[in-house]
């Protein structure tokens, strides 16, 4: 009985490597940065586009890292911006200290700060992870939401973080032109690492936990370990994004990393499709570019977000849409055309 099922796509092998979904993802990211940096370094880009370069990169990093938690692990986290703020503060502080003590150039200072900010965020990810990861679903969402707000308020009330006025980063401020290569490198490396992780034993275990916790633990998977690992790894990337963000501004304010930002990132992940890295990248770019392009309707942005979310949910789960998507699938379309060509050729003979 089992042998009767045949994969329809296997009959027409199209160059597999070229259509591999991971290759396409990496290609999209690299192409995006190639085009963007060409425009910027040849001075064809406007000032607006120049200023957005780092913001877009940060949001891509945030979206792909949150996708690890929401899409791959299947847990709803509503406090992702907190990891970014921790990274932004710790990384920027290290960068300021290094600059003042040794006058270290950007190309050493920034990578060091990124790693440091990422590690501090990882520690926070683990600290929040240990008590929280015994929770599931709604409870986890509520606690991560609270965690995000707590981090924000603690930073506002501490002295060495500059309090509510914000942390002065004028000393380490760098122009988007100077930061773009680092941003591109961070995004491309993160995307590659996540793709690699997803294809490994660990990635499969993470997806198994998402699909069925009871079966996963019966199959020898330590659920707590993998949950913690995903939280820590995702916090690391968010921390790196924070450091980048900190270097692109002259002042960082904790109030920016609030619930709205976490939700904005979640919207990107859901729009791009949970578990799809490529989707997250594209959605991050679109959602950052569109508001700039549609400045006139900026007031309605949140309204449009919620409408888009509802539409996306329908698009993802309604059976009619699923059929439509199958039809519009690039691979299937190519197979279809190839089959038709072969059929035509056969008829002529």
């Amino acid at each position, binding site marked *: 009985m*089992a*042998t009767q099922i*045949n994969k329809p796509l*296997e009959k027409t092998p199209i160059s597999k490597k070229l259509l591999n979904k991971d290759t396409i993802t990496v290609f999209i990211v690299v192409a995006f940065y190639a085009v963007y940096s060409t425009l910027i370094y040849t001075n064809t880009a406007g000032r607006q586009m120049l200023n957005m370069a780092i913001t877009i990169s940060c949001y891509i990093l945030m979206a792909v890292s949150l996708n690890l938690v929401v899409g791959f692990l299947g847990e709803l986290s509503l406090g992702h911006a907190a990891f970014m703020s921790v990274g932004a503060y710790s990384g920027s502080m290290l960068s300021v200290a290094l600059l003042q003590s040794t006058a270290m150039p950007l190309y050493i200072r920034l990578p060091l700060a990124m790693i440091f900010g990422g590690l501090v965020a990882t520690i926070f990810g683990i600290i929040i992870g240990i008590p929280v990861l015994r929770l599931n679903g709604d409870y986890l969402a509520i606690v991560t939401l609270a965690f995000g707000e707590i981090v924000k308020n603690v930073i506002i009330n501490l002295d060495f973080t500059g309090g509510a006025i914000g942390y002065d980063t004028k000393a380490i401020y760098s122009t988007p032109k100077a930061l773009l290569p680092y941003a591109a490198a961070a995004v491309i490396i993160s995307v590659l690492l996540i793709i690699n992780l997803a294809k490994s034993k660990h990635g499969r275990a993470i997806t198994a936990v998402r699909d069925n916790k009871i*079966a996963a633990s*019966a*199959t020898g998977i330590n659920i707590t370990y993998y949950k913690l690992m995903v939280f820590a790894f995702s916090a690391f990337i968010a921390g790196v994004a924070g450091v980048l963000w900190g270097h692109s501004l002259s002042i960082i304010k904790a109030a920016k990393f609030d619930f709205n930002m976490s939700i904005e990132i979640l919207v990107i992940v859901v729009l791009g499709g949970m578990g799809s890295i490529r989707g997250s990248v594209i959605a991050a770019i679109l959602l950052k570019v569109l508001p700039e392009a549609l400045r006139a309707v900026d007031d309605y942005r949140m309204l449009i977000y919620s409408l888009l979310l509802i539409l996306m949910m329908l698009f993802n789960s309604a059976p009619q849409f699923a059929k439509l998507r199958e039809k519009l699938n690039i691979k299937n379309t190519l197979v279809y055309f190839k089959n038709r060509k072969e059929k035509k050729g056969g008829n002529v003979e």
Partner: protein
Amino acid sequence: MSNFNKNYPKTKMIVPPSNTLIPERDADKLPVLDVRNLGIDFGGLKAVDNFTLTIGKTEIAGLIGPNGAGKTTVFNLLTNVYKPTRGAILLDGEPTAGKEPYEINKMGIARTFQNIRLFNEMTVIDNVKVGLGGSVKENLFDALFHTPRYRKNEKMLNEKAYELLGIFGMEDIAKLKAGNLPYGAQRRLEILRALATKPKILLLDEPAAGMNPSETAELMENIRRIRDTFNIAIMLIEHDMNLVMGICEGIAVLNFGQIIAKGTPDDIKNNETVIEAYLGRKENKKNA
């Protein structure tokens, strides 16, 4: 249905020191599972009580009983999904008390579920590879950077996974989503995923549920084949008496959480208490 058993000689069962039946061929080896006075209470209800059972190294054992007797609860106790209130479980001589379910799996108990629990969004082969995951050493660094060790592991995992899929002839559907498989194939895949974790004993919770007679016959052959190839013990819960009586060497009958009978299929078939538990008392029939 009785002709399934034709080529297989009846196992001679003996009584080991702990006073339960195991096949004679396993007598000189440590029993794979030695359960003593196991019990769990849900509030005031003794869901399982005084459950004592020994399973030989290569035995195919059956656990039967009317609906609600506590059969699946026993499986959940054996895999520590529920923590036992009383009693001890020895797996190959080692106590399993206090272990997490995933540790129990690593110790050598694998199981399937009554309501199929596959990783639906993953491909068939990935489901098997999740089970195989415990057999390779690979740290996060290998996974993130796809080191030579990762590539070596992945190659080996693929080979092993296809080998396992070959048992049920499922190689050509390896790349399909597990959730899209027909019911019978899902059941087979679940057994393969459990086998992939290299268990010493395989617990099957109603493997023949929803199968037609010819599929059941095929399943019986396969269960036997799995036992013979992997040399492991298999314990199954099943309502299909043809299957249970056809392949099980030792059978335990559970009713209201208590074992009411233990023995070979022939013993059980003729056991008054068992017939009573399933069909009711004879006197009632006379009175009616």
